[in-house]
């Protein structure tokens, strides 16, 4: 039986047309874009074309796009870059408690080196309060960082509103858009962001390539020091096939975004409804409406996430959990805890993220397979003793 992949938020398969677009740049047009001979200039032309495509799609200028090795590097670059380039103006950064580790960990690193970070709380749906951001701004604030949409619970944050506040207060504003790029429309001016991090492998592009949008005039120190690539903002020989693939993936995503979002929203609705109907003591995590079209995150009481995942996997269904059992910390997802979930519910979460190949049949299959798995695990759960 064909396996069912419902973990598109973790990564996506590379689109066949993207692979086709990349191939010539592996072996034929393989030059180093920094070389002035024809091999180099052909490669240079290819990455500039990709830059143009991506810039146009998010309403940016070409030279505001800096290619990176992925979303994590883009976030590290934005955060450490603004911190180091602006520390003479202040050492305070504002973020919130449900950011991705690619934002939180660079901030923790900066805290160890003398910066101050405010982690704003979120409401029960994972929403950051723009007025909370406004209140947190002080004279020393140099950066606000709020993700566009959360990778675990799919909640879409009020970025445009925060963007207006940031502009008003004269503070740089970074958003991690790894989960939204190619899935919902993004225009940097409408969002009012100065920095925006994206990653290709979340939208059917290749792994190992991403970009940081840097609004003209924004003071950012380089993160990767070395050669003069990317207008001296990011050293290292450019990943030409990766960048070309990224451009192609963005183009395809832009064309299909509208219809695909609609289709996924319907499937998502069916999955949520089915789960709530067929399983007792289950709840939806994240915002009921302001959420990514492809995200379903539920907490199943009395059972632990990884054991559900393994059982699903044995049935050929791939999903994800916010339980910490597979990580080296024993704490469950900081995102679920920030919503106010008790630990055992956070440990009992399941995330299904839908994508291009997801069908109604696949959703139906999850709805058939999961209830008996939950029943089986609950029958061994000491948390449910009183009910047995």
């Amino acid at each position: 039986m064909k396996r069912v992949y419902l973990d598109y938020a973790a990564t996506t398969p590379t689109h066949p047309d993207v692979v086709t677009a990349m191939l010539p740049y592996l072996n034929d047009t393989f030059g180093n874009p920094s070389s002035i001979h024809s091999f180099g200039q052909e490669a240079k032309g290819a990455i500039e074309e990709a830059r143009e495509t991506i810039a146009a799609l998010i309403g940016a200028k070409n030279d505001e796009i800096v290619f990176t090795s992925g979303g994590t590097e883009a976030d590290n670059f934005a955060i450490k870059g603004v911190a180091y380039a602006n520390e003479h103006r202040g050492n305070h950064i504002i973020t919130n408690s449900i950011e991705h580790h690619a934002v939180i960990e660079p901030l923790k690193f900066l805290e160890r080196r003398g910066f101050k970070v405010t982690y704003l709380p979120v409401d029960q749906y994972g929403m950051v309060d723009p007025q909370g951001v406004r209140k947190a701004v002080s004279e020393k604030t140099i950066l606000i960082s709020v993700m566009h949409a959360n990778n675990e619970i799919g909640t879409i944050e009020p970025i445009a509103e925060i963007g207006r506040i940031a502009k008003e207060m004269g503070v740089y504003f970074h958003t991690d858009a790894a989960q939204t790029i190619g899935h919902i429309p993004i225009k940097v001016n409408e969002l009012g962001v100065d920095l925006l991090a994206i990653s290709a492998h979340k939208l059917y592009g290749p792994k190992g390539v991403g970009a940081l949008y840097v609004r003209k005039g924004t003071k950012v120190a380089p993160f990767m020091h070395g050669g003069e690539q990317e207008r001296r903002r990011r050293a290292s020989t450019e990943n030409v096939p990766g960048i070309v693939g990224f451009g192609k993936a963005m183009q395809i995503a832009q064309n299909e975004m509208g219809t695909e979002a609609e289709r996924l929203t319907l499937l998502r609705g069916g999955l949520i409804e089915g789960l709530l109907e067929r399983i007792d003591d289950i709840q939806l995590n994240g915002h009921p409406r302001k959420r990514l079209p492809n995200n379903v995150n539920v907490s199943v009481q009395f059972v632990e996430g990884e054991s559900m995942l393994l059982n699903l996997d044995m049935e050929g269904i791939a999903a994800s959990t916010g339980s910490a059992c597979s990580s080296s910390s024993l704490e469950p997802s900081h995102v679920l805890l920030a919503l106010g979930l008790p630990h055992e519910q956070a440990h009992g979460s399941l995330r299904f993220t839908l994508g291009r190949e997801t069908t109604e049949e696949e959703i139906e299959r999850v709805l058939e397979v999961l209830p008996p798995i939950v029943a089986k695990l609950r029958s061994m759960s000491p948390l449910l003793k009183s009910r047995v």
Partner: protein
Amino acid sequence: MAPNIRSLYSEKVMEHFKNPRNVGEIENPDGTGHVGNPVCGDIMELYIRVNDGVITDAKFKTFGCGAAIATSSMVTEMVKGKTIEEALEISNHAVAEALDGLPPIKMHCSVLAEEALKSAIDDYLNNSQGMDLESE
């Protein structure tokens, strides 16, 4: 294509996870161990029946990951037929070994299984000492 999760867990772990032995509770057990807590995401309850210093039955209930369930299952298998003294010598490493190993980040599950067993035996020893005192 068959799922391939061997790079995470050994086949033995998966086998015990799929078909855990001795799931459930023992009514009026001679000893009960209750370890773990919801913060870490692992809770184990272990019940033992003891006759003449020999563990004749063991059952468990576990809330936790694949390794937690497999180690619970394995430890209940391992203690059955053992004397209390023998059972006290079962280490977490022995449990992990019996499962053909656990990934490093999952070793704490075997520790929990050992603790659950120790705690059940402690409980049994306390109970039986209590009874001895009463009957004196």
